[in-house]
């Protein structure tokens, strides 16, 4: 049902939640458009989740399919945990954006396109052999075909712009229309445009004019098919002050909060740029005032080594990369394991193997985190589940690294690095402190003397009088810290290293279900960024009366002490992962449960519907 536009006014239909995606050329400003829609939705009290999807190319030729940039927002009055399975609304600024995104729109969803750009040349660039606006391609959607180009040009006619500049305002026109459609305010956007273009007021004015025009268009013109605009209520969020935060920001701030809680002065972040890990470097590079020093090293090996050197010298050494870069760090991480130095290694996972799909998300570096080193070299592995969860995980990484004198691998991924959600600002005074003690007392000191409870060795820092000592990657005597080739000593040290990491289990929360009872027919066990879709899928299955629970692991090495017992309470275990079956393999080996994996490696998060189907399949099997 294709519709053409005409003016009118009507009553708004209520919607619980909406998934909307802005898609266009890299140069069309879709990321900014999406971000502003997010801000206005958040201010209007929605819960939300966003996911930007950049092209792999920096700036692909205009109109090409691989140059399409998109920004997706899921917002609503309900508890929003994922960026959404299917699109309710697609704004496609050109044919390439339409062809690459249309398949994600639900049947009956709304598709907004600018008729002016469906020229033969653009159609060809996008790979269309016929014009999709005319050949029935859109028949199963509600399509809104507007000449946005002309409408924008008219709106900015008085602003004295070049025609290129005028066209650049199309995104604001579209945003205006969407803000009208979902009954959102525009003032934050107007304020932001004023600031952003403070130095070129005519551009600011033009963008604001386009924004207003888009909005006015919705208000005044009767949209086809009785499209009247929607009302999305306020979400029932706990009271407090909110902001939206991406996983990257929240992790960076968590590390800083952890630094404070540990009572340390300096965090030395050694890194080398790589997609999608670089944003963490960028955010931390701006945090000098918080005691953060960033070092862009010559490669990932130097990056992790600089962090190890910093930890050796008494600062908190942190390094970060994505899969290929983490692979390079393996040998040095082994040194940190052997010398028992605190070290945080953040892996923003992306699709592999090798270079893989750098801009696409995956969870396939869990094995590497556990085992990507020579020798028996255990370390702590924890994972982030949501953008806001990254804050807590950041703090916890600092706690474990300093308390246990160990490297901690923090697994996050490309989805979490870029995705954002509203965050109830934490009470920073309420963050429990865990002050670190660096050894000062020479009495009875040797570098591998251990705290009998944590098994952590002493952190004795250069500059401290009378604690001068030498450490290294050769095996050390348990009783003096000197190099030791003694056979039994190596066995003891191997056991100690394993025991220290295993012992962390006593110091972490017992595993609880994220949803559902502690026993049942099926436990869906996840880790990392699959939290949202699993939670929603389990909720949906539970609504249908299935005895299924969601167990989501933050702690992967060691596992929580009660995990075996908890999982034993379920007849079946399903482990959805964005890899070819890694956590499931660890669980099977550890507990000998016949856990089943569910693998998805398409570079995209699970859809709730896929998981719902898998849950049903599991339970039918057993029926």
């Amino acid at each position, binding site marked *: 049902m294709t519709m053409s536009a005409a003016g009118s006014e009507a009553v708004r239909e209520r919607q619980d939640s909406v998934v909307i995606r802005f898609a266009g050329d890299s140069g069309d400003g879709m990321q900014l458009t999406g971000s502003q829609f997010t801000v206005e939705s958040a*201010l209007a*009290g929605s819960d939300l989740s966003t996911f930007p999807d950049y092209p792999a190319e920096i700036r692909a030729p205009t109109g090409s399919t691989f140059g399409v940039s998109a920004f997706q927002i899921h917002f609503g009055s309900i508890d929003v945990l994922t960026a959404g399975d299917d699109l309710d609304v697609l704004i496609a600024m050109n044919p390439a954006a339409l062809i690459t995104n249309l398949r994600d729109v639900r049947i009956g969803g709304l598709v907004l396109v600018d008729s002016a750009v469906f020229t033969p040349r653009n159609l060809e660039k996008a790979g269309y052999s016929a014009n999709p606006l005319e050949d029935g391609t859109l028949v199963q959607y509600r399509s809104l075909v507007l000449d946005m180009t002309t409408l924008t040009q008219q709106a900015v006619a008085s602003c004295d712009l070049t025609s290129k500049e005028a066209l650049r305002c199309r995104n604001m026109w579209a945003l205006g229309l969407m803000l009208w459609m979902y009954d959102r305010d525009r003032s934050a956007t107007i304020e932001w445009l004023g600031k952003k273009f403070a130095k070129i007021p005519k551009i600011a004015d033009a963008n604001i004019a386009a924004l207003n025009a888009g909005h006015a268009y919705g208000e005044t013109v009767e949209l086809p098919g009785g499209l009247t605009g929607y009302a999305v209520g306020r979400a029932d*969020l*706990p*009271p407090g*002050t*909110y*902001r*939206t*935060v991406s996983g990257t920001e929240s992790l960076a*701030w968590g590390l*800083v909060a952890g630094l*404070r809680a540990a009572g340390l002065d*300096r965090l*030395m972040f*050694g890194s080398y740029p790589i997609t999608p890990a670089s944003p963490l470097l960028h955010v931390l590079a701006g*945090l*000098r*005032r*918080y*005691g953060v*020093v960033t*070092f862009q*090293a*010559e*490669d990932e*090996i*130097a*990056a992790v*080594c*600089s962090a*190890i*050197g*910093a*930890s*050796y*010298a008494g*600062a908190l*050494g942190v390094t970060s990369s994505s899969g290929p870069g983490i692979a390079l760090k393996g*040998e*040095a991480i082994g*040194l940190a394991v052997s*010398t028992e130095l605190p070290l945080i290694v953040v892996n923003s996972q992306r699709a592999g193997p090798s270079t893989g799909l750098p801009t696409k998300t995956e969870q396939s570096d869990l094995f590497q985190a556990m085992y990507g080193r020579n020798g028996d070299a255990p370390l702590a592995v924890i994972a982030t589940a949501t953008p806001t969860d990254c804050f807590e995980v950041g703090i916890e990484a600092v706690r474990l690294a300093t308390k246990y004198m160990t490297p901690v691998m923090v697994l996050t991924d490309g989805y979490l690095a870029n995705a954002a959600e509203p965050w109830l*600002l*934490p009470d*920073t005074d309420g963050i429990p402190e865990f002050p670190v003690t660096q050894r000062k007392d020479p009495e009875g000191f040797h570098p591998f003397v251990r705290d009998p409870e944590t098994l952590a060795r002493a952190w004795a*820092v*250069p*500059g*401290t009088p*009378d604690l*001068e*000592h*030498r*450490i*290294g*990657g*050769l095996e050390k005597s348990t009783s003096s810290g*000197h*190099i030791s080739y003694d056979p039994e000593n190596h066995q003891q040290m191997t056991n100690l290293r394993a025991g220290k990491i295993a012992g962390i289990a006593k110091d972490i929360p017992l595993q609880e279900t994220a949803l559902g009872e502690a026993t049942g027919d099926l436990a869906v066990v996840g880790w990392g960024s699959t939290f949202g879709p699993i939670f929603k899928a389990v909720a949906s299955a539970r609504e249908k009366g299935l005895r299924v629970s969601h167990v989501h692991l933050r702690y992967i090495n060691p596992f929580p002490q009660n995990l075996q017992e908890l999982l034993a309470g379920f007849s079946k275990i399903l482990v959805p992962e964005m890899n070819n079956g890694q956590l499931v393999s660890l669980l099977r080996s550890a507990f000998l449960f016949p856990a089943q994996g569910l693998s998805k490696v398409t570079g995209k998060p699970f859809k709730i519907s896929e998981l719902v189907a898998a849950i049903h399949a599991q339970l039918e099997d057993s029926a």
Partner: protein
Amino acid sequence: MTAPTLTAKDFTSDQEVRWCPGCGDYAILKAVTKTLAGLGASREDTVFVSGIGCASRFPYYVSTYGFHTIHGRAPAIATGVKLANPDLDVWVVMGDGDGLSIGGNHTLHVLRRNVDLQLLLFNNEIYGLTKGQASPTSRLGTRSPSTPRGSVDAPLIPGAFALGAGARFFARAVDIQQPQLVEVLTRAHQHRGAALVEIFQNCVVFNDGAFHEFTERRVIPDNQIYVEHGKPLRFGANRTHGLRIRPGTLSLEVVTPGEEGVTDDDVLVHNEKDQALATLLVRMAPPVFPMAIGVIFDSPAPTYEHVVLDQVTEELQAGKADLDALLAGGRTWTVL
């Protein structure tokens, strides 16, 4: 109360030294502890960082802080040490394989960045610890277990490499020529920034006599030139020879003042700030030229960690930053 001055012996650790008897590393150890004593260094503020190799065992034998890391990575680890605490006095010990083969890139970048470190390259032109394979400084034709018919890759000249990388300090010394070695190490320490010292170190087991051509007592006068800033570049028994610029060219030649119309004034005066001169000096080698020993280049520039940490300090002076302000720094809204 001033701290008691420490002697060379005070800088010796209690660990049994495990190099082969006769290894040049012993002499270097002696010179380093002597240098530390001479500098009035403190044990607690001094750190030795090394990679892996015979040379890299060094930290165990010094009574300061020490970190024996992994092969080739000492410069990168030392950079982290300095960024954590720039007040530490950090010495890096590397073998020629460690610092120029697997670790070449880190050496390159630490020199380029000019991190304030003393980098000691123990050049024995061989892989000692792994039993004698050719290294990147081994001469052409070196027969070794991995090059049974002789190595075919041209050796790297550490000085040329360092200057090409942008090093601000480069010096050379010989393991057993103690006074000069101590002098050079002291100068490296005085230099703020990355200071690379190439020490010709005799590996008695796998490459014995590699440097005899210019280190044997009788050939020293003719085959070594000890360069000193502001002094004429003269050498030879009785300093009969000198170096001068071959007129009209960018090259050096050996001359004998008093012969063939060459005067004392023709002899070039060493200028340790002259990068071009340094580049020519490091490429000299017997038999045509003497081997240049001493401080060949010393031209300080701002050090990496100081500029970085000055920026940090500057920002920190605004007072301890407020975490809440950071978190609430974006656009916020309130739910009642």
